[in-house]
């Protein structure tokens, strides 16, 4: 009996120990944990990692893990402090004083001060990015942890410009700015981000590792901002051009994330229990650009006829196919952003050949060939070009579709004598500031004094309600003047292994707050 009792005590002890360890394991499962190398398969390799030098998203998806900005968009795409702790604006609206968070270290151990912030912002201004259009008189230090931006006239969008992912006013050590100069690219990848640059094997990968001295914000993650905690030891961005290889590698577990997936791979991987497939919105939209400066495109009635003839549903279905990967939406700014508008959108997706023919008749169209220029390798652009060509021929236009490779297409589009229409896609913007013909850039044409006055007022307006009203008026002009004919939004599917935890489905992916639970 005594023997049994003694054994029972040991058995009970063992049982309790096993139960406790099991409880500990289950408590730890799902908790963030450090460790592992996250492998990301991307379709192309960037030319450099200088976010200030380019708007390319390939650069940003890698570099914003080690470079940071003063402000960053939250989940509503509104700017929130990142390296800045806050800002004030002078009474006349011309001087923005931005205070920096103290104790922020660069990856080389140097503390971030206003000297670095001033040098970085000045470079962004001098390189003619968004801030270059703000008529900035001076950027200067106002103490060790404060800086001032002085404008020639009051503007309400400075903080937005500092936050936007495409303006990428990244903050670098002054020494790195001096080394790069205005004309050269940043090649010193020292930043303040949660990860630091380790290696770049051209043609293969970029490797980052966790920055252990990183200080996350003491607040919850919020969109691209809030706390950014680096959990994984390393991130490896691999350049995998072939889409099938990205999908197979994801299935095999060689990649943790594969972007983008083809619609066929998406359908297949949705049934794979080891993979989550996301479509993130907003992403891009397809549209038809008119050469509004000359030729047929320079005539409003021609553009109105195109707008009336185009069947957006047919174009998007033919171009994208999978209904889960596109939506018909008329907004020039994306539905998920605070700047979404529906003014003028009764003219969207008319699909009215009869009306289009009537407009052509009133215009006196004489059969002059309509030159549509498209690249052969960018989908869904080529498919859209083919579909729109047919739709325009159905209303009696003579269409000359000219296709080239990407580089040649872009060269042709710079020459207003060579084209009338071109399908293009536009990646999403946080703010109308970055839209075509608001900030400048392609395409050519659409010179309108009324539009210019509205845009000028938009830039200067500091009251968000009034700014929204001005934007609505500009939005209406897109539909009345038809410099572009929007077709619809589309999305890229992204595959993520289930062992990747903490992933947030934002339009542009990032890997802070992400860990591996193998």
């Amino acid at each position, binding site marked *: 009996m005594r023997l049994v009792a003694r054994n029972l005590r040991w058995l009970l002890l063992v049982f309790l120990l096993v139960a406790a360890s099991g409880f500990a394991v289950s408590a730890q499962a799902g908790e963030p944990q450090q460790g592992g190398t996250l492998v990301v398969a991307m379709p192309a390799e960037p030319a450099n990692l200088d976010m200030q030098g380019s708007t390319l998203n390939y650069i940003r998806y890698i570099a914003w893990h080690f470079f940071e900005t003063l402000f960053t968009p939250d989940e509503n795409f509104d700017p929130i402090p990142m390296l800045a702790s806050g800002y004030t604006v002078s009474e006349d609206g011309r001087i923005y004083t931005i205070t920096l968070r103290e104790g922020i270290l660069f990856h080389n151990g140097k503390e971030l001060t206003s000297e670095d912030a001033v040098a970085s912002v000045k470079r962004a201004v001098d390189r003619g990015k968004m801030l270059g259009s703000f008529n900035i008189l001076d950027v200067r230090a106002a103490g060790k942890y404060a800086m001032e931006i002085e404008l020639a006239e009051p503007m309400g969008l400075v903080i937005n410009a500092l936050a936007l992912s495409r303006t990428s006013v990244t903050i670098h050590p002054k020494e790195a700015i001096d080394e790069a100069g205005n004309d050269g690219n940043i090649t010193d990848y020292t930043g303040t981000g949660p990860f630091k640059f380790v290696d770049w094997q051209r043609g*293969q990968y970029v490797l980052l590792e966790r920055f252990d001295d990183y200080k996350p914000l003491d607040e919850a993650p919020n969109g691209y901002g809030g706390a950014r905690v680096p959990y994984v030891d390393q991130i490896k961005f691999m350049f995998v051009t072939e889409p099938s290889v990205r999908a*197979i590698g994801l299935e095999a577990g060689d990649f943790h994330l594969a972007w983008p997936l083809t619609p066929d791979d998406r359908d297949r991987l949705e049934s794979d229990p080891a993979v989550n497939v996301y479509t993130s919105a907003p992403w891009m939209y397809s549209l038809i650009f008119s050469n509004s400066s000359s030729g047929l495109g320079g005539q409003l009635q021609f553009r109105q006829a195109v707008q009336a003839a185009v069947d957006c549903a047919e174009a998007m279905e033919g171009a994208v196919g999978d209904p889960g990967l596109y939506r018909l939406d008329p907004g020039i700014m994306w539905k998920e952003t605070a700047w979404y508008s529906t003014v003028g959108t009764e003219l969207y997706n008319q699909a009215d050949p009869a009306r289009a023919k009537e407009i052509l008749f009133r215009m006196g169209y004489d059969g002059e060939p309509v030159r549509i220029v498209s690249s052969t390798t960018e989908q869904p652009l080529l498919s859209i070009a083919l579909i729109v060509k047919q739709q325009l021929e159905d209303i009696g236009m003579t269409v000359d579709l000219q296709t080239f490779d990407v580089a040649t297409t*872009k060269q042709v589009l710079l020459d207003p004598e060579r084209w009338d229409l071109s399908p293009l896609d536009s990646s999403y913007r946080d703010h109308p500031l970055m839209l075509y013909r608001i900030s400048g*850039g392609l395409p050519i044409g659409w010179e309108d004094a009324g539009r210019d006055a509205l845009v000028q007022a938009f830039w200067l307006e500091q009251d968000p309600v009034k700014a929204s009203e001005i934007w609505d008026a500009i939005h209406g002009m897109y539909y009345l003047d038809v410099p572009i004919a929007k077709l619809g939004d589309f999305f890229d599917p992204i595959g993520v292994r289930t062992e990747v935890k903490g992933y947030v489905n934002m339009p542009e992916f990032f890997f802070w707050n992400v860990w591996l639970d193998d």
Partner: protein
Amino acid sequence: MLGYVIRRVCGALLTVFVVATIAFTLMSIIPGDAAFYVLGKEATGGDITRFREQHGLNDPIHVRLARWYGGLLRGDLGESITQTGESVVGLVLGRLEPTVLLATFASIIGISMGVLFGVLAAVRRGKLLDFASMILALLGISVPGFWLGLNLILLFSLRLGWLPTAGYAPISDGFLTTLKYLVLPALALGFSQAGVIARMARANLLQVLSEDYMTTARSKGLREWRVVVVHGIRNSLIPTLGVIGISVVLVLGGAIITEVVFVLPGLGSLTVNAIMNRDFTLMQGILMFVAIITTGVNLFIDLLYGVVDPRIRYG
């Protein structure tokens, strides 16, 4: 002999000069440039102009040509436009290892498989082994390497989990580690080479096996395997070697697609990216590098003929 050498060297230099001029001219007339690749499609006209000025793309053509010739004389093939600050020579040399290794392994696979299938088909002419070998050879010639590569990845990486999907490890990481990444691409590339070699090996061996001296060898009482291996294969390899030599060159060309599929950072993928991104300097440099190597190898072989065969005298 000296006169022969001088003439050959002068001919090689003239060839290099002509290729350099053609390379430059071709790059100059190709529309588009690297600006949009580097700056993004939302680059303004001002951004593009500044970029072109920084890289001398707006300079007059005769200025750019003189700069090109001057660089060549100094052994400087220029700097890549898209890979900022990287010298073309450095980029090309840095990408040689994967391409050379891939071509070597693919050739080993292709030659050994090709000769084996060809010999088996010849000695078992008309039998099942002959048909099977020739069907495999035909598949090797017909199946695109791209498609074969993807299916090899499906089988060995996804289904079996034996090998990585893509990527590369340099020799400095260990030979076996490097081999792990090169097995599938080498198989994909070597299989097509094997098909070509197998057909030629079979045809050549069949011809040799029907020669009178083969009948003599058999009548002397030699075993059949000795007749085939010692007398047949050795004699049939001479013309087959010619095909093998050509196929090795073709493997280098096929490596371009294979490197893109398997994410191998070789000269092939460098060339593809340079073309797609309009990196004129890099394209010119790669073209010149290949031309110089080819010219140099041909010059060496020409000179070797003169040494090996005293009858070759043009002095």
